[in-house]
């Protein structure tokens, strides 16, 4: 009890200094939580975009980014015919610019793609998409006529487009044949083109970026992979979870999130270290008194580290609260719809708290070591 009282007394003695340290850790934790959550949301969105009503993603082996993946027409034609397969949807990813938006994601899909069939249609309908699908031959001549595309709801907002209006994408002009709402932020901010239109527009005739596959029986995944390996050795099939764990872009995003978060926590830890150094240096005499009264170096270390732990843990808790609040606010911003994954697992919260507290305690190691070396007689005589 006295031990805890000593810890709290020391911290309350310099309230502003303590508060700044707590704020430093809190800011780091909140930043880490927010960055990780947003990037996890982005990864989750992309992942769900690929796994829409499917279990397996087929793409080109050893490709660094799915935008560069080429699945040939022969595979697109063959895979749906395999007995194991319930359905297979080819998707071509592309990036295009509009006069007001430098980057818009385009999805070249077939008319039966579940991304379209399961979406909520805000304007237009499947029929509009089917109609657009039949008018694919006009893209090359787009300066003279407009092809039909379907916009995600957010894309319609930032392109200021309505049903039947004409929009400019790249060098072409397209008629908005429909507007749909999905639960996926990427899709909501994207443009859906008929696959053939997209292939021509992006000069990738006969190519898809991926084929998403649903099997009759999920347990047939291994057999599917084996057959793909046998018949199309340049392609690879990964189950959704495998893909999430191995796709290099996801790894980079996750690593970036944790790196940014770690940098923040490290800065917070340095703040705690600074506080503890100041704390130790300004009470050398007090440390000497404790030594004279029988405190061992180990007990003094526990005292200093205990102070750091209280600061770090308090900062972590405040940071978690702030971070959760920030994520909620971001989630409610229309522009970020679908980009923020507000589901924070207990593991994530625990990891962030442990990391911040651990860093704070690590920051107190040097001050603790210094306190252990204090020679009481000198401290009492000269201070």
């Amino acid at each position, binding site marked *: 009890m006295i031990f805890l009282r000593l810890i709290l*007394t020391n911290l309350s003695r310099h309230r502003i200094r303590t508060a700044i340290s707590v704020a430093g850790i809190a800011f780091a934790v909140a930043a880490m939580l927010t960055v990780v959550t947003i990037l996890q949301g982005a990864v989750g969105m992309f992942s769900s975009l690929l796994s829409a009503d499917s279990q397996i993603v087929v793409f080109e082996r050893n490709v660094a980014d799915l935008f560069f993946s080429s699945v040939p027409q022969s595979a697109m034609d063959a895979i749906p015919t395999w007995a194991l397969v319930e359905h297979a949807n080819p998707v071509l990813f592309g990036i295009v610019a509009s006069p007001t938006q430098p980057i818009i994601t385009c999805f070249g899909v077939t008319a039966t793609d579940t991304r379209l069939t399961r979406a909520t249609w805000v304007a237009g309908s499947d029929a509009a998409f089917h109609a657009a699908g039949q008018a694919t031959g006009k893209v090359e001549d787009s300066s003279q006529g407009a092809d039909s595309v379907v916009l995600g709801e957010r894309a319609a907002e930032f392109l200021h487009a309505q049903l039947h209006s004409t929009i400019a994408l790249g060098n072409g002009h397209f008629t908005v044949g429909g507007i749909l709402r999905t639960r996926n932020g990427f899709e909501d901010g994207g443009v859906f083109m008929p696959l053939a239109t997209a292939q021509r527009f992006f000069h990738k005739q006969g190519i898809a970026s991926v084929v998403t596959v649903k099997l009759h029986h999920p347990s047939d995944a291994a057999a599917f992979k084996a057959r793909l390996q046998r018949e199309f050795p340049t392609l690879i099939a990964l189950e959704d979870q495998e893909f999430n764990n191995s796709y290099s872009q996801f790894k980079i995003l996750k690593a970036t999130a944790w790196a940014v978060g770690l940098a923040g926590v490290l800065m917070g830890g340095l703040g705690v270290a600074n506080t503890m150094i100041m704390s130790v240096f300004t009470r050398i005499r007090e440390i000497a008194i404790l030594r004279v009264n029988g405190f061992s170096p180990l007990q003094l270390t526990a005292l200093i580290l205990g102070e750091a732990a209280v600061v770090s843990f308090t900062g972590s808790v405040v940071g978690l609260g702030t971070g959760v609040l920030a994520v909620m606010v971001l989630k409610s911003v229309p522009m970020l719809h679908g980009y923020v994954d507000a589901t924070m697992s207990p593991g994530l919260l625990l990891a962030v708290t442990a990391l911040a507290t651990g860093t704070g305690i690590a920051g107190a190691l040097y001050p603790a070591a210094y306190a252990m070396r204090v020679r009481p007689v000198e401290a009492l005589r000269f201070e």
Partner: protein
Amino acid sequence: MNSSMAEAKATTKEPILQAEGLTKAYENGAIPVLHGVSLQVYPQQTVALCGPSGCGKSTLLHLLGGLDAADAGEIVVRGQPLRPGRMVQNMLRHQVGFVFQLHNLLPDLTLTENCLIPTVAAGVPRAEAMERLHQLADRTGLSHRLQQRIQKLSGGERQRTALCRALMNRPSILLADEPTGALDEATSRQIFALLLELVDREGITLVMATHDRALAARCDRLLEMHDGKMMDGAGSGARTAG
């Protein structure tokens, strides 16, 4: 204390505290403080170290209490040579209490919390520690001030608190460095009387550095130091002050 009683203490028991040939210098030998000081203190004796400022009284007390290490010489406590590290730590927890001229209390804590510090260090159960504190507070007249912060105590009360703290773990040796040096004369007399009463009642051996010869005269032995040396024969016998 009369001389026959002091001599009886000295002759009937083994020394509780011995120092042999203690030498100490600071600043890498540039400032010599002690030159071969030897001393024998017997159980329950009260010993006053007198001498001018800078003669080495405080340094000797620090060496005897293990707060500092001698450059040469040996200290034996209850028959065991004093070694730095764990032995000193255990000695500070269980065998030796310190009282300083400046009380050296933690100002942000209450009287109770300050006094409990040695018991926390020694791992004494709280109930037992509180019982001991109440006992000492009764004897020192501090019972009504237990929850006061140190900042609100008078100088005399602070020194009595320091005395309580030093005695919390029932040490057998009390080392006091000018314990009344910062107090007015009247308070000084009260505190010293209390100190003698407590060490007598608890059977504690007292070694006290002081400038006040009137106070020193009330101890069993008065040892004179000068320029880092014990005056001829002062440390070895049972010479009485009175």
